[in-house]
């Protein structure tokens, strides 16, 4: 009754050699290899951070010594003397300003692209994502002239340009979020008697809060870590932490100041990142 299988590429199932011990042997190296690879990757990602930790509180560390010879706060003192405090405040302000501009605009654009018929969607996408392909210095050269002629204050120009550089990230983050967002929740809320604003405040924003937070963080990062746009468009008066890092690192002999300034430049976004719970990802697997 049973028709034989069509001529097939495989011989019938045969048990693996012996009692399968060959497979057991091949699995253990797999696990060892995976662990070694994971360790190598951890070293790869952490190694460049090691000098910062060593130099941070090193008052004296002359050349071939393997470890600092005297620990102290000289680096911190001279970083403060170079204006690290006000620069920190300026960087913070710049990051927050860029975040405040780029997050809502990106969310609005993403919502329009996700749910509505936007005219010329390909062109809109191309314009919003073009900053990814536009070298910062190229934009700054042209805009320097343009902003000057339009009499835009330098700081406003910096915020404008950096917000545009943040838009691809905020738009993309929110586009993904809207892609998996179920409009059914909002319709359900409307049928339960919620007004449009109540739906926005009590359903829409809470559901999208994680994505909005990620998006705001990425925009903050663009403003916080920028060097070149602030340097070229800011007119030289607006000194931020990355600019202090650059000037300290390009000189010689003040390695501990570089370390202090670098840590200053890293801590705020790192704290934000931990606060965002980036580590609390969903566990791998999506079966159930």
């Amino acid at each position, binding site marked *: 009754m*049973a028709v034989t*299988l069509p001529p*097939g*590429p495989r011989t019938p199932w045969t*048990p693996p050699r012996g*009692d399968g011990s060959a*497979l057991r042997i091949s699995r253990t190296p797999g696990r060892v290899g995976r662990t070694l690879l994971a360790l190598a990757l951890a070293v790869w990602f952490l190694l460049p951070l090691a000098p910062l930790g060593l130099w941070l509180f090193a008052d004296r560390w002359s050349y071939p010594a393997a470890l600092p010879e005297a620990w102290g706060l000289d680096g911190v003192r001279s970083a403060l003397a170079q204006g690290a405090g006000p620069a920190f405040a300026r960087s913070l302000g710049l990051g927050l300003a860029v975040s405040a501009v780029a997050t809502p605009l990106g969310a609005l654009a993403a919502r329009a692209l996700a749910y509505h018929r936007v005219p010329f969607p390909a062109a809109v996408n191309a314009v919003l994502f073009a900053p990814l392909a536009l070298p910062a210095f190229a934009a700054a050269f042209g805009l320097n002239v343009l902003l000057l002629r339009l009499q835009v204050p330098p700081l406003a120009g910096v915020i404008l340009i950096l917000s545009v550089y943040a838009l691809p990230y905020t738009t993309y983050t929110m586009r993904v979020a809207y892609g998996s967002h179920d409009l059914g929740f909002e319709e359900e809320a409307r049928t339960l008697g919620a007004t449009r604003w109540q739906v926005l405040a009590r359903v829409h924003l809470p559901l999208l809060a994680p994505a909005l937070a990620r998006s705001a963080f990425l925009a903050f990062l663009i403003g916080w870590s920028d060097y070149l746009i602030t340097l070229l468009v800011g007119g030289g008066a607006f000194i931020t932490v990355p600019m202090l890092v650059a000037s300290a690192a390009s000189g010689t002999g003040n390695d501990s100041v570089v370390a202090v300034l670098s840590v200053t430049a890293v801590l705020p976004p790192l704290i934000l990142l931990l606060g965002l719970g980036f580590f609390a990802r969903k566990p791998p697997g999506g079966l159930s």
Partner: protein
Amino acid sequence: MSNDLVIDGLSKSFSSSSAPVLNNVNLALESGSCTAVLGPSGSGKSTLLRAVAGLEAPDAGRIVLHGTDLARVSPEHRGMAMVSQRPLLFPHLNVLDNVAFAATVRGVRRRAARTDAAHFLDLVQLEGYGRRPVTAISGGQAQRVAIARALAARPAILLLDEPFSALDPQLRSTMHELLVQLRERLAPTILMVTHDREEAAAVADRVALLSRGRLLQHDRVDLLYSRPVSLEVHRLMGGTNEITGTVRDGVHYSALGDLGLPADTGWPDGPGVLVIRQESISIQDNTRSSAEYGVPGIVTDIRVLGPRRLVTVDASGIRLQTEAPWGRPLGAGDAVRLTIPVSARALVPGQPDPGGPTTADTATAVISTGR
């Protein structure tokens, strides 16, 4: 016939719960047979399938394929193929290359693999769909492609994990028919997991009933209905009639009177529960009411079950249920006589607990009937 797969004393616990998911499960699959593992959700049936596939490591017990213990064999070397509820067609491959996947990863030349795959697309009645992207086919077609892809791997055992439960009822019965056809043509050994009694009956020749990690009965489909080995099996299969009594010399004595048991089995003397499928009990035609045989009773409740109705009858203080066809008008309080064929009677050990099933719903809630 020889056994393809023997599952021997399989046990498995997850750290998240104290009760074992699988508790000493023994099961043997005959070559070319289709066995349905039937059980309510959480009974461990999917875990059983994943253990056979090698995707879960059991705590104890053996899985033996053609005489070889699979404990140390990785999933890709087990010669299984699985179709799950989600078709999981590779999105980067078109329909034909999905079916050709198993051959491709074994190093078969692309052209030969595709020719072979085309045969299997024909088998699932999707000839000509090969060049389509997997996003351009319907849910039912995707599941057919998944079946073709699994069959093209020439699995020693074809594993089906609730493969049709995401499909609508009409599509599901089409798929059952397809599976029956495929069995006639290719005779693969199939282990299938389902929560649907009717699906199990439609495609499988043997059913393994699983509940709370224990295998309750592994038998032919009809025997699972007509000769349950325990009250639990009877209830899980949707049976509602339980009559406590005593057996002596093949006759069950209870408030209903003395009812002879089928002669083909030697029934042990002593206390025992008589179980009768509600479908097997019929209501006698009232016009011949002179007849003195049958069990007398009073109708207490009538529920509509689509083409039939579920009639509850109080017979000498015992609640009996029968599925009667439409026809004769019936109402609560009517006196009726019930026929209980001898072949429909079966005995299970034990006492029904006082709060046992009182309506059909409690049983159907446990395993859905798929209607």
